[in-house]
């Protein structure tokens, strides 16, 4: 992950919140990530960080794959290549110092997830 400034971390947390709330209907979804992501630890947040995949509504994928038991969750990647995984709904990653958000159209359709007009542009 690229070196982020304090402002960037805050931005990143806001983006994660937007993505999470777009993908699940839960008011304050539980979020699991195997590795520490600084922005997910920021409080207050519109999500709860959990430390077991089983308790999570959303799994933030930091490695190239995640355990099978977690694959039925709403999985959000942190690399562009993560989007190639069939269980990944979308991804948020930094590239060339710019934040990138992408949602997989097919996956969303499969799970009847409808994005707000604000996010539709990020659907691929």
């Amino acid at each position: 992950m690229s070196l982020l400034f304090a402002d960037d971390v805050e931005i990143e947390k806001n983006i994660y919140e937007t993505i999470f709330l777009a993908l699940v209907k839960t008011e304050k979804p539980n979020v699991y990530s195997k590795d520490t992501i600084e922005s997910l630890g920021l409080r207050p947040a519109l999500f709860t960080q959990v430390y077991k995949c089983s308790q999570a509504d959303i799994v933030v994928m930091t490695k190239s794959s995640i355990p099978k038991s977690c694959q039925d969750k709403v999985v959000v990647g942190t690399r562009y290549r993560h989007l190639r995984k069939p269980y990944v709904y979308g991804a948020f990653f930094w590239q060339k110092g710019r934040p990138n958000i992408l949602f997989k159209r097919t996956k969303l359709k499969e799970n009847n997830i409808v994005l707000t007009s604000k996010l539709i542009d990020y659907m691929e």
Partner: protein
Amino acid sequence: MRFLVQYGRTFTILLFLFPILGFSAYYLYLKYEDTKQDIFDIVQNNLLNNKHELLHLYVRHLGNEFGENFIEVLKKDTKKRIQAEKELSLLKSTDVKFLYLLYVDEHGKLRYLLDTTQDLNEKGEFQQRFFPQQNIWLKALNQKKTEVATQTKIDKLWISMAYPIVIQEKTTALLGIDFSHEEHLQINKTLVPLENIYFYSAIFIVVMLISAFFQLVIYYKHRKKSFIDPLTGMYNRQYLSELLKKYPVGHFQLLIMDLDHFKQVNDIYGHDAGDIVLSTISERVRSVIRKKDILIRYGGEEFLLLIPDKEKAVSLALAERIRQHVKEHPVNLNDCQLSITISMGLNPNPSHAKTFEYAIKIADQGLYKAKHLGRDRVEIYDDKKPTNEDALQKLCDVKEALDLNRIYCIYQPMFNTQTLEVYKYELLIRMQDPQGKMIVPDKFLSSIRYTQVYIEITRRVLKQAFEALEEHDVKLSINLDLQDLFNDEILEIFVDTFEKNLSFAQRLSIEILEHEEILEFELISERLTKLRKLGIKIAIDDFGSGFANYKYMLNMNIDILKIDGSLISNIDKNEHAYKIVQSIQTLAESLGIETVAEQVETQAELDCIKALNINYAQGYHLAKPSANFLD
């Protein structure tokens, strides 16, 4: 006006200098920053031009290599894409972080076509969406012009450049380059010493200015204090002299004020009470003057008011207001109330005087007039009379003569008419003009009567009398104007000179002359008593002429009568004169008063005087005045 006098020019200049220097320093700083920015812009433009040229050449190369529609070719042919990417990476210099080619898809979205980035996490894959953060991409797309965005992060300047590739007047792709611009940092580093010098110089100047400012504030605070009389809170003479450096003599009308009978307040109630009176009266005066008037403690109980008005009526009204206010508001002194009055002399035309000192003297003469006319009044010295330049010139001449010892005393012997032995000597004052001509006192004393020079002459005469009494076994008689008895200073000279040498005082008599009618006999009598207490004998001079009449005999306890020379002259031939002198002698004898005949110029006159039993005689027939005593 007062600000300038109190704080002076330096302080005022500094007050203006502060903001001027501040603004100048700020202006220089802005100019410096502008220049620095200009340098940055020049360097940056140069860099951008280089990059732009490079990208331009690359696009030309792609056209030459893959045909005019090279974007479509690259999209379809992976091998050619790899080749083009390799070629693109050749353009990467150390300052370039990202260099990539984006194409515009059928929905107008930007996607990666080529990306020279080595780091896989940063590298955009073919067809991957490119999310433009800055609007330079869309602008370059729409306006078909190269766009640049800059961003400063950490200590580097990051520049993103979007270079549009236009084919058939349509932007089909964008070449993107993100590079850092370290020259910015290098220039900044180079300029640091210069900035430090400027910064520390500015700090030094500011500190010095602040220190100078505070030092001046302290200096002028002390200076202001030194202008204020601590007892009365009025300005003092030092302030007056500062003020006079800045204003001509005629700028103010001068009102000099003197508390009436203040010496008695001090004598009776003590000096502490005197101080209370002075401070209270100064408050009273201050409460009725205007803001523009300047009140100065000019002497012990003497105040000077500088009135910056031209009309005499304004000053007179002001003076009258002060007088009334002081009179109507007695001073509270412990349990009693003390009524204080104030006498004032106004000089409404100080510009007539050559110097401020002369202008003050004119006001002073008005004050004396007010005192002699009964006090508690305002008087203007009549400038049609002796206030003119001649009088002032006379004053100068007398002062000069006094300084150069051209004023001296001679002795006229007075003889016992029966024994024709010298009884005493009358001290006669004379002035020698610069040409050596002798001038009699009538010609010069009147013009200086109410001045300090007159007092100085009195002091000089008394000194000579004292020395003569000390050195010779003689009796002396000196002349004194009756008006002089009102002058405390003159009276003090007598007391100071003879108080410790009463035996000398007993050999001294004072001949009192009169020029104006005096009504305050009570006061005169009180003053004469003081002199008599010392043992000094009192004589009335020129008796039988002018104001010197029986009223004085009645009201003043006198020892000697000097019969006026006009009665003695031709007494042997003038029967009326003879009878008048005879009656005077009879009266004097009955009152135990000794008599002296003046101006005895013939033997016949002397014989008559002798026949009338007049005790003493003087005149040219007997002896002329001389610088020495007779053997």
